[in-house]
């Protein structure tokens, strides 16, 4: 009898990339629903549009690169990129903006670098940066969260705006879009208002909600909860979000204590914009993050630091995409210098000691 030969180990492996990706996608559902509730149908339309574009770009690139389409197309990675990008885009962004961002993310940022596992930069964030630099005006088309003064647009109205650029008869752009709380703070601080004055302003005041902006609090709260769930289940590494949050908390607290009139409080930092989505779902993309234990702490903390710097002194209201891309660049270096001490070795044999060693 002839038996099959194989290399050890002989126990079937249980995990798969696909399950990993779909678990992350599932965990995004609660936060996404909150976004749809607060910001309208545009969120859903963006997700669907981005997903269609992402999957077709992925299929096209796999076909061109002669890769097995069936294996890769539904591994969930393209879909995850699409969803992350769609959630980061303004709800009333014109359709072509979503198409350009997503296609660029998949075709250039992912496949031209070698596809899944080989891209040094987070594709969704590359797509986002491309559109925010190229089309700054369209990128401001954020819908105000469900407030008394504003009427939520219907599904067909939203579709018409996105695909035909046709506004409902009674409204102008000013009536249906509004700067985000982060943007407002930045503008008003520029006009020399204090944080206290901005938060109690009769026009802008209500949008700040109780901690991080009306609606945003819920969105961030839900992403935080599902992100924690993923971290506990070991699907994402908890050190990266912990690093992001810790760095942001330390910096914002220090500056707010120093000058509470011109620096937003830590709670606002943590619960406005896309911070929880970024910390738990974007920064944790394993392909582009650092992989060592210490490296992940530093990687997360670096993102937190850059977000704070860009939010406070930069030109953009939220700096998540730039912060993530900057740390993507640093990831290989972090990995090299945070190599764990291998069993039975002394610390002095490791890279951060190489220099001294060479000098000897």
């Amino acid at each position, binding site marked *: *009898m*002839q*038996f*099959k*030969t*194989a*290399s*050890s*180990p*002989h*126990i*079937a*492996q*249980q*995990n*798969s*990339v*696909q*399950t*990993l990706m779909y678990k992350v996608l599932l965990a995004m559902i609660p936060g996404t629903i909150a976004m749809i509730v607060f910001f309208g149908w545009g969120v859903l339309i963006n997700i669907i549009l981005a997903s269609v574009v992402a999957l077709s770009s992925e299929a096209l690139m796999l076909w061109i690169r002669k890769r*097995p389409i069936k*294996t*890769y197309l539904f*591994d969930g*990675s393209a879909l995850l990129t699409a969803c992350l990008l769609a959630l980061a885009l303004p709800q009333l962004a014109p359709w072509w903006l979503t198409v350009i961002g997503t296609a660029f993310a998949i075709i250039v940022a992912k496949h031209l670098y070698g*596809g*899944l*596992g*080989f891209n040094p930069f987070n594709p969704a964030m590359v797509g986002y940066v491309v559109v925010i630099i190229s089309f700054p005006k369209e990128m401001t088309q954020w819908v105000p969260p469900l407030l008394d003064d504003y009427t939520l647009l219907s599904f067909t109205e939203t579709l018409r705006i996105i695909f035909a650029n046709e506004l409902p008869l009674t409204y102008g752009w000013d009536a249906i879009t509004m700067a985000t709380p982060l943007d407002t703070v930045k503008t008003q601080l520029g006009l020399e208002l204090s944080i206290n004055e901005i938060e109690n302003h009769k026009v802008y005041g209500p949008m700040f909600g109780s901690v991080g902006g009306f609606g945003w609090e819920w969105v961030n709260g839900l992403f935080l909860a599902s992100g924690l769930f993923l971290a506990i289940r070991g699907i994402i*590494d908890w050190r990266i979000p912990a690093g992001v949050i810790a760095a942001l908390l330390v910096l914002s607290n220090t500056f707010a204590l120093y000058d509470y009139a011109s620096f937003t409080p830590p709670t606002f930092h943590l619960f406005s914009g896309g911070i929880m989505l970024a910390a738990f779902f974007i920064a944790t993309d*394993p*392909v582009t*993050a650092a*992989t*060592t*234990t210490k490296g*992940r702490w530093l990687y997360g903390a670096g993102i937190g630091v850059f977000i704070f710097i860009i939010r406070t002194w930069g030109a953009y209201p939220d700096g998540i995409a730039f912060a993530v891309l900057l740390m993507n660049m640093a990831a290989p270096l972090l*990995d090299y210098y945070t*190599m*764990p*001490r*291998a*069993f*039975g*070795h002394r610390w002095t044999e490791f890279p951060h000691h190489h220099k001294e060693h060479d000098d000897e």
Partner: protein
Amino acid sequence: MSRAPHHLWHFHGGLKLEGNKAASTTHAIVKARLPKKLVIPVQQHIGEPGHLLVKPGDNVLKGQALAESNSYVSAPVHAPTSGTIVDISEMPSPHPSGLNTLCFVLESDGKDQWIELEPVKYPNSKSPAQLRQIVRKAGVVGLGGATFPTAVKVNPGPGAYIDTLIINGAECEPYISCDDMLMREYAAELISGCELIQYMVASKHCLIAIEDNKPQAIASLQQVIKDKSLHNIEVVTIPTIYPTGGEKQLIKVLTHKEVPSDGFPSDIGVLVQNVGTAVAVHKAIHLGQPLISRIVTVTGEGIKQPQNMEVLIGTFISELVEQSGGYHKDACKLIMGGPMMGFTLQSDQLPVTKACNCILVENTEEESPATMPCIRCGACATVCPAQLLPQQLYWHASSKNFDMVQDYHLFDCIECGCCNHVCPSQIPLVQYYRFAKTEIWNQERDRIKSDHARVRHDFRQARLDQEKKERDEKLRKKKEMLAQKKKVEANAANEGKDTLVDPKKAAIEAAMKRVQDKKAALKSATEKTDETK
């Protein structure tokens, strides 16, 4: 009186695996039937192979040495039963390489007649060195799978000090239960073996480490220790985490010490022996019996009646399977060792060796999903017991960057397969590490070879140069001498012409003159006489 539980530490990573040991531990160890034909590989240990002591046609008795070597790191092999050596030739043996090795073919006579044995009644009356010699003659090797000659291992060497002897009964690989059954049924022999090894290495403590999934083994050993009221042997229950049975991991768990990457356990005062080895040491000394049998777990979904068997070395695997109810109809994979670190065999027409602890037969499984690219998730690094970065190793190994893999400490990898097991991309990581190791070894060998060749070439060149130089020197000297001689002669000639009057020449000339004068006188005289006529 109950002792305080031994303090335990953790090693990094590891896996909690499904044990699957129950199937093979339902009944006691079964003695395998005496086979008609046995195939005994000459080399079943790490080290030098022995030279042959018998030739085809010889009749041998059970326990008679068949091959033995004079080199230090070696172990003899013995006839597992009495009979006739019918052949000594290259035959397939159970080895990962699948290559043929030199084997004795023994046809048993069915009498199973022992050679005269020399048991040691009072081991304490012998010196540790004498006992080591007995262990050595008995061909005892590490039965955990490494098959390193035990006599070498229990010799700490001058200046070395063994504080703790660890008896490894962890048996962390799923499916395997031979050590478990051995501890249950040979508890007294095992403890006796521990005492003997302790005597040989002069260690203070002896810890028998057993995973907490073997309560019966723990109980039976504790009973023996209690009965004999031994105070320096302790059974330590350790958590069931794969690969806690790895030598370095076990030492870490029990002592918190790490074996240096480039060192041995003895460097930190520890010696680890497998439970089976301890029993073999007992048999060698107290019974005088060489290592000719071992306990083998025959198990897996592909075996109808999984069990543990006491098997003579050289028995064919096919016979064990047959005595364990045969194969399941879906059986497709035959593995020697456990599912994590064992290797596959192509055929069951192979003999059991000293290294063979388990025969595992797996059924056809559904096609595993396709291998995906590494997504750097780091799951591998979290389970790696050697604290390596498996995905970086994989990255550099697959791009054949052999300098970088060594920077990432490839050679600290114990190939336990944990990283492989958790990889969501289904990458056969361990295969890459083996490939890289082999490549590096090959390069190293080539380098040594070329270094050797270069040295030889340089030496030859130097020798030729030297010879040429010497020849030239000789020639030059000869020429010089000739030139000197010529010069002297030429000088002499010139000098004679010019000034010096050679006395000889003068004498000759004078004589010649005299003769001429005489002749002239004579002539004138005759002319005178002619005139007068």
